[in-house]
């Protein structure tokens, strides 16, 4: 069994009541608004990106990576604790061939749908209800991967 890399490494040891999750909902709301307002959910923006005809998406992803990188380095350097009092732990990603094969396949799908998993949810919320079908199909894709996982190279 290859568990690492795709395993659940997010869980915290602290048991929290359900409503403590509402802060993630709130963060998600902001995230969704940004995705609509910066037109990241647009199929056209993804086409522009892959055709190298607009800087927009490169700017978005590039800025996000730089901001994320600086933040993570500060958190690590200060050995910061979460608001729940736990030391922040970020697990390393282990390499496996899935990152190549799966990565290529996801890229094909990203260009077709104009959406990675995040924008799928936002598109549905923004009223593109047919994306529910895309979303269900993505769940099915995830399920098929889970079922045939042991037969795939990793």
């Amino acid at each position, binding site marked *: 069994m290859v568990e690492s890399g795709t395993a659940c490494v997010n869980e915290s040891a602290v048991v929290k009541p359900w409503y403590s999750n509402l802060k993630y909902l709130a963060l998600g709301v902001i995230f969704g608004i*940004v995705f609509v307002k910066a037109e990241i959910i647009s199929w056209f923006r993804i086409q522009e990106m892959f055709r190298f005809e607009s800087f927009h998406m490169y700017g978005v992803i590039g*800025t996000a990576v730089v901001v994320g990188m600086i933040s993570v380095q500060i958190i690590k350097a200060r050995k910061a604790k979460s608001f729940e009092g736990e030391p922040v732990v970020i697990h390393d990603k282990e390499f496996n061939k899935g990152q190549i094969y*799966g990565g*290529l396949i996801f890229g094909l799908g990203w260009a077709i749908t104009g959406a990675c998993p995040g924008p799928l949810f936002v598109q549905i919320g923004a009223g593109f209800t047919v994306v529910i079908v895309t979303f269900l199909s*993505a769940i099915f894709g995830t399920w098929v991967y*889970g*079922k045939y996982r042991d037969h795939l190279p990793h």
Partner: protein
Amino acid sequence: MMELISQPWPWYVAGIFIGLTVPALLLMGNKTFGISSSLRHICAACIPAKIPFFNYDWKKESWNLYFVVGTLLGGFLASQFLSNPEDMVIADATKAHLQKHGVIDFSGMMPSDVFSWEALLSVRGLVFTVLGGFLVGFGTRWAGGCTSGHAIMGLSNLQWPSLVATCCFMVGGILMTWFGIPFLLSL
């Protein structure tokens, strides 16, 4: 102020917000950013079918589901109350290319002649919606993450496997856009 909000937001504003999601999740509760995992949790919750990969305590990961439901709500709020009244501005070259391949509707964020319930009844709409979705779900899980988990979280944490994954996302997307999409649009 309202005018500023209803206009499309520039890339650096979006980039800063998305980048800050990384420390926000780490500090809120030691969570690492990654959206495609939600698809796995939904499988684990709804259709585990005794598959070992879906046999885990998904409830421990429910924060991830709250987050994605939040993004959906955010999409709703932004499109209802903050939407840009103008048509989208699409790069001329991209628009000309897509027009040549039969895309007609450029008014919204998605072309309704490819993505809509009516279009779903055509071979073209079916392929874009169903096949596209399948590749996204299958590919991200095999890769162990998507744009958020690998390209943003992984690169932020200087993980070279995430750099490999991100390059593969781009290569797959470029190949499909240049060689696949013109054919798929002709269906």
